[in-house]
């Protein structure tokens, strides 16, 4: 990996006309994002972030700040959201109980619905629903299990999982991109 891969992007001035003042309320309306407006931007989240310390582009305080400001487009499509390791350190340390990791997940839910999810994640979810496993399984896996005295790979409830993704409406997001092709 080359040095400077995570360089600070050159910042353009923020223009009021590009802001969505209702974005914060949209987030606060979700259960996970309900405490976002309590943020007083102290930075305890970014200070303890294991990703933030290694990159210049993912800083939880900045994402929360941008969301509060109404930078809807940047937050949902910028890609930073997907760098969170969901370790919950920020959430545990937040003095205002903003539940930062949960806010990030709420934002990911919104980004997903609007079609801004990295393809790798959709593929994982698709694999899961179609096979019950997160990755492709092969026959040699049973052999390794046998070597350790384990039974064959258990059967997962694939049919039920498919019913669940249909019933919860999740399926339309799962295959959206493929349908377009």
């Amino acid at each position, binding site marked *: 990996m080359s040095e400077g891969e995570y360089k600070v992007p050159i910042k353009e001035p923020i223009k009021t006309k590009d802001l969505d003042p209702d974005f914060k309320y949209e987030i606060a309306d979700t259960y996970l994002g309900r405490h976002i407006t309590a943020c007083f931007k102290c930075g305890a989240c970014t200070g303890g972030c294991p990703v933030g310390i290694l990159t210049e582009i993912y800083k939880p305080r900045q994402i929360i700040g941008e969301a509060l400001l109404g930078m809807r487009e940047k937050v949902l499509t910028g890609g930073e959201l997907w760098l969170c*390791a969901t370790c919950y350190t920020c959430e545990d340390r937040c003095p205002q109980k903003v539940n930062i990791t949960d806010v990030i997940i709420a934002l990911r839910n919104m980004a997903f619905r609007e079609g801004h999810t990295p393809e790798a994640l959709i593929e994982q979810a698709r694999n899961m629903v179609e096979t019950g496993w997160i990755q492709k399984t092969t026959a040699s896996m049973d052999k390794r299990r046998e070597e*350790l005295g*384990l039974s064959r790979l258990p059967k997962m409830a694939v049919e039920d999982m498919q019913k669940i993704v249909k019933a919860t409406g*999740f399926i339309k997001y799962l295959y959206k991109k493929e349908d377009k092709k």
Partner: protein
Amino acid sequence: MVKYALYTGCTIPYRLNSYEASTRKVMERLGAELIDLEKANCCGLYVEPASKLAYLTLAGRVLALAEEQGLDILCLCGGCTSALAKANSYLNEHEEAKNEVNAVLADFDMEFTGKTRVVNSVNSLVEDIGLREIKRHITKPFNGLKLAAHYGCHLLKPSDVLQFEDPEAPESVDNLCALTGATMIDYQDKYECCGAPTIATEQSLSVKIINKKLQNIISAGANAIVTVCPYCELMFDLMQLEAEDVYQTKYRMPALLHTQLLGLSMGMDFEEMGMSMNKVNADKIMDYLSE
């Protein structure tokens, strides 16, 4: 005697057989009974970023399976632990969401009632079985092994949901592993994430995180690393090789799971614990075992 419904999740049964095998053998030795959950599904963690309702329903189905058995559910994976524990507490507190989930589950004649308890492997060993009981079974203690424990995130956090121990100063894994005779060491940023969750979206970032952890562990003088989660184990073992490649260096630091460590110190066989399936050769661990 403790008895659990065993939930192995979506990764362990084929990517980390050693964790499943060592857990089954160690738990059997400790007199714990494990009932396999038949026809389980994903815990929902992987769809949480996409759809809350799909996540809650998948998690609700797994919890309902354990409820049918009338047992607490034992999770080996940190991801499963926090995903199921979060869903369990959320659904118990939110009647509306619970009804939505149950409306879907009714199709399979299942119902989430919130009667099961989500227990992680470490949780079970330290709290349900107890350190005193485990100590009785250590027959071949390690001698002079300096071990770095990695707690991972989802054993402890979010702490208000998991309510296990203080995530800023946890002791459970150190206390558990110290029973085997190993000397537990401290190192910089000990309680920080292994980087696994960003692998799919930004692998170079994951490698950067694990590389930093490895360097901290090596400068603290450890002989080996012990992990308690399949993803952390894959990061410290498999991805260690990737970090060596990317940063043009050699660490070759054995990383084993807590159940493998316990099994070896209970006199169980190296092969039986799946130790030869580790990607970083772990033979040198055996040099520290007493005769």
